[in-house]
């Protein structure tokens, strides 16, 4: 066998074994403890010992979704950050980029995810969707078409939906406290 041991640098000799914390866990610890969230976003852990599964609550203070409280679930697996976190909206909301099952159309959650991105980038991206809903990437087609056709009507629909009303036969969840 080759003698590898002699190649080990002396500085390494002092370093004994490392913690058996997985790379994904360490990375999530780093991401979470360095979160720099504005007052409009808040994380909520159902089980404080489980940092891989939690909720994010977004309460926009401007734009047409102002006054609402929007809940997203975050599920992170052992392959993070090779794979992005799985994010879903927990409520039925009227938004062009969120479908009725809670799927979210945000590029960095799928096709544009890179390991250098972090939880902060995803959260900021989600908040941006409420400030600038995007009619070009629709998941709720009705909402997207309304936004394109008649912005005033769209804003009105948003208000109705946030109070728990229905639009075109779809009942939305009340998101105003």
């Amino acid at each position: 066998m080759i003698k590898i041991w002699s190649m080990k640098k002396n500085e390494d000799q002092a370093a004994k074994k490392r913690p058996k914390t997985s790379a994904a866990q360490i990375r999530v610890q780093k991401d979470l403890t360095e979160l720099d969230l504005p007052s409009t976003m808040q994380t909520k852990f159902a089980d404080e010992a489980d940092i891989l599964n939690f909720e994010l609550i977004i309460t926009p203070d401007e734009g047409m979704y102002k006054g609402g409280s929007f809940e997203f679930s975050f599920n992170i697996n052992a392959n993070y950050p090779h794979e992005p976190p799985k994010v879903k909206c927990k409520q039925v909301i009227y938004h062009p980029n969120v479908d009725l099952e809670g799927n979210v159309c945000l590029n960095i959650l799928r096709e544009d995810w890179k390991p250098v991105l972090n939880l902060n980038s995803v959260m900021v991206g989600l908040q941006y969707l409420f400030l600038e809903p995007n009619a070009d990437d629709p998941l709720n087609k009705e909402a997207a078409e309304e936004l394109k056709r008649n912005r005033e009507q769209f804003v009105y629909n948003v208000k109705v939906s946030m109070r728990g009303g229905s639009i075109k036969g779809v009942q939305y969840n009340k998101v105003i406290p």
Partner: protein
Amino acid sequence: MAAAAVVNGTASSSEWEGRYYHVDQILDRSGPRTDPSFLAGDEVKEFLREKCKILVIGAGGLGCEILANLALSGFKDIHVIDMDTIDISNLNRQFLFRQKDVGKSKAIVAAEFIMNRVPGVKVTPYFGKIQDKDEDYYMQFNLIICGLDSVEARRWINATLVNMVDSDNPESLKPLIDGGTEGFKGQARVILPTVTSCYECSLDMLNKPTAFPICTIANTPRLPEHCIEWASVLEWPKVHGDKKLDTDNPEHISWLYQVAAARAKEFKIEGVTYSLTQGVVKNIIPAIASTNAIIAASCCNEAFKIATSSAAYLNNYFMLIGTDGVYSYTFEHEKRDDCPVCGGQSLAITVNKEWTVERLIDMLIERQDIQVKKPSLSTPGKQIYFQAPPQLELATRPNLEKKISDLVPDGGEITVTATTLPFNLSLRVKYT
């Protein structure tokens, strides 16, 4: 008792004259580039054939090639792990398997085949997951070769081998040779845990699995893949709720296939098949037998050179790109300081066992050699103190007043992260 044939001083019924004629040309004399530690002759041959224990992870496309190559180059104590069973679609390239083996364990069938074909070689199979085995198991090997198609399994074995390195025990450092292929592309690399860059160091070099924008899938499908993703990403959770999609369950795949095919028909898209459905949801990359053969051969040559020191081994990354003509490139992939597995700083600290967590944190902040502000601390599976987010800070705040020795055992490890640290820091705590 029948006398065993005696050839060149080695007695064994499975040896015959000339069996190792070619390999011995290399082992009987040194060349201009052989490692200075190489001792030509019987000792190295005895090590290779009698003592060296090698582990092969994966008995699929690469694994079949690796097992055959190792056995034919003189490794005689080979172990193989694979959790999969043989599927009919494997038979086109996984040449140790036959039609009658469909449904059986890849590891077991491959081991039997090699032992029947190459006399004197012992192959010990394990039908299960690499995660079933502990450090004691991995410690018994001299070398480990990986022929896997899973990023997750590779990250696991890589982290396990890096963690195993114990500065008091040279035997704890196990060379890892990793092979991977993707169509006409492939790579082979040599990882010397803690010495060279590790698998995790190069994670961002990987091609990420293709993902399509979710709104394209939902609204404007153009490809058969879009229809399949629509079925698996959007329709499955809608129809089945919390029931998890099991990509190894043929019933689940059939359901997806039917839903995707209906969608494809609606949008006049052609090409949705059962096997494409399986390929997309399992993220199966086309496997080409000859690419596997090249990469496996390269891995086995490195295993041979490392086991015998008969020639300089790969330092440390060989890339083969056969998609546009043939291009290959060998380079030294560098260790990343901020690698969460092999990078970062490691520090042994001695603290009074009466110290509180707060006192320890103050000490870390004061230490000039660390330069850390606002550190967050955890032990494997447990938080000690998190600076953020607010809920976790609040939940872990009571720990600040607790004795560190009540939370971390003597000799235990603490992971420290902080905004000011580009990477993480591991502390190993001793109490006085």
